């Protein structure tokens, strides 16, 4: 079958080798071609690392080259991130509140004002003796006044009173914080002599707890919704980038690029968008905090209390940035994978 070719000089301007190394290296291409497939594992890993580094910088430069448009994309991501992040912060302080509530699952036994200190001690002993009681704490009338003043910060008003209107009270921590058990215990304690009233603030506790649970769900739903928003923003941006580099993708696929190779620069772009959006959202959160902190502090001060808005700590910031970067990466992955299948080399 094979035709014997007569060795002839190539015609005309076929280029001459100027470098000695060039011609011999072009020889025996068959064997070399096969061998280059079998590059050792370590050198393959080095090549892989090299391409990752190159693509991360390449995609970063592409971002920097069009700062305005890319900044707008990142701003869109940032805005989508700010709301769930703010809710998360609020929820975090709610969680602290919830822990306090668990502590405060108590009954307060108000003694009659006629009861003196010695009687009060006897009543406390009787209360402690009850099976369902974990421990008790006596609050004398004076202590009660002091705590009242402290928690309300209404020194001036109370200082004007002639004598202490507050009764002594015993704070009871029950064994069982279930509403029914607490109700039962309250009835038992109310029957003791010298006890004026037993108060169980159960409804309040329950209501707060339900509210917190509702808040958590709303935050989760919003977080997912806005996370999806980030995916769509990044996905759409990356889709356009893929479209604008379609020719390049076709060419490299023609000469043997794997899908991973083609995907890599876009995944880095997505991750950069996510990271940039995350940083901007941190900035927006800080700005919002600054904007609100003054009126909030003034409001708290007017009640004689001090309260500061919850702020994202280092861990929280890192989590936010990681999430946004991951979302950007994922959005890019979805967009590229979806569009690569539609790109076929001509």
């Amino acid at each position, binding site marked *: 079958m094979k035709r014997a070719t007569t060795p002839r000089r190539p015609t005309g301007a076929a280029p001459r080798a100027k470098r000695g190394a060039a011609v011999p290296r*072009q020889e025996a291409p068959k064997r070399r071609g096969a061998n280059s497939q079998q*590059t050792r594992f370590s050198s393959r890993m080095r090549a892989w690392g*090299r391409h990752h580094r190159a693509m991360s910088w390449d995609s970063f430069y592409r971002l920097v080259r069009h700062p305005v448009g890319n900044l707008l994309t990142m701003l869109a991501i940032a805005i989508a991130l700010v709301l769930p992040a703010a809710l998360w912060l609020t929820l975090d302080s709610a969680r602290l509140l919830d822990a306090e509530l668990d502590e405060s699952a108590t009954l307060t036994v108000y003694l009659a004002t006629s009861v003196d200190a010695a009687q009060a001690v006897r009543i406390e002993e009787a209360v402690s003796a009850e099976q369902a009681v974990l421990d008790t704490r006596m609050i004398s009338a004076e202590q009660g006044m002091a705590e009242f003043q402290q928690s309300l910060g209404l020194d001036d008003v109370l200082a004007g009173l002639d004598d202490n209107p507050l009764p002594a009270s015993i704070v009871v921590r029950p064994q069982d914080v279930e509403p029914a058990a607490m109700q039962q215990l309250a009835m038992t304690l109310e029957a003791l002599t010298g006890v004026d009233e037993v108060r169980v603030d159960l409804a309040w506790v329950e209501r707060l707890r339900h509210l917190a649970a509702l808040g958590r769900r709303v935050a989760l739903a919003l977080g997912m919704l806005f996370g999806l928003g980030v995916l769509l923003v990044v996905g759409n941006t990356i889709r356009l980038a893929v479209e604008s580099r379609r020719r390049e993708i076709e060419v490299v696929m023609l000469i043997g690029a794997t899908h991973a190779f083609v995907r890599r620069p876009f995944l880095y772009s997505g991750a950069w968008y996510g990271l940039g959006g995350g940083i901007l959202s941190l900035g927006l959160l800080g700005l919002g905090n600054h904007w609100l902190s003054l009126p909030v502090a003034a409001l708290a001060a007017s009640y004689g209390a001090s309260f500061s808005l919850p702020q994202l700590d280092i861990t929280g910031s890192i989590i936010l940035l990681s999430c946004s970067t991951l979302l950007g990466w994922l959005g890019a992955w979805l967009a590229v994978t979806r569009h690569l299948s539609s790109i076929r080399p001509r």
Partner: protein
Amino acid sequence: MIAFEHVGKRYGGRFEALAHLDFRVERGEMVFLTGHSGAGKSSLLRLIMRLEKPSRGRVVVAGHDIAQLHSSQVPFYRRQIGVVFQDHQLLFDRSVFHNVSLPLEIQGIEPRETARRVRAALDKVGLLHREKALPVELSGGEQQRVGIARAVVNKPALLLADEPTGNLDPQLSADIMALFEDFNRIGTTVMIASHDLALIARLRHRILRLRDGRLVGDEGAV
């Protein structure tokens, strides 16, 4: 190197681009593929590049039955084949050097080794002095030679060319063909689709003639 066994290719159920193709190309051969446009030259090359699978029969290239290749193996298969396109398929936003280095980048060759091989390939096609130029700054013939340098830079066992002289004047076309002969002389199997009958007749290599998707002539084969 290339074996077509009863190969047929249909597009969209009815149109038969190729039918009853049966031929072999041995290692180290240089073959021209000719026929009027629409005769199936490009379809045949697309099968070898595994851009498509045959509807019937078997295409075996370098020991691979191309229909059996898993899609994840296709990139590695394509790296064994150098392809020169009529429209060059160069990337216009990067220099000549970076166009030629693309196949090596894809394979993860070390930068220093890449530079060495790219310069050797550019030297071979006579464009070493233009390595920093952008493709738009080159003439048609020079662009085609960059395309050839890119096709041979990773020393493929098989070199395919689809109308490589389609837009060039006769002198440039002869130069390009001489380049292909050079690569063939050092052992590369070369297959060139061309309808420049006058030129390929002068070159005295094996010629496969296609008409309406069928092989109607196989001249020059021993």
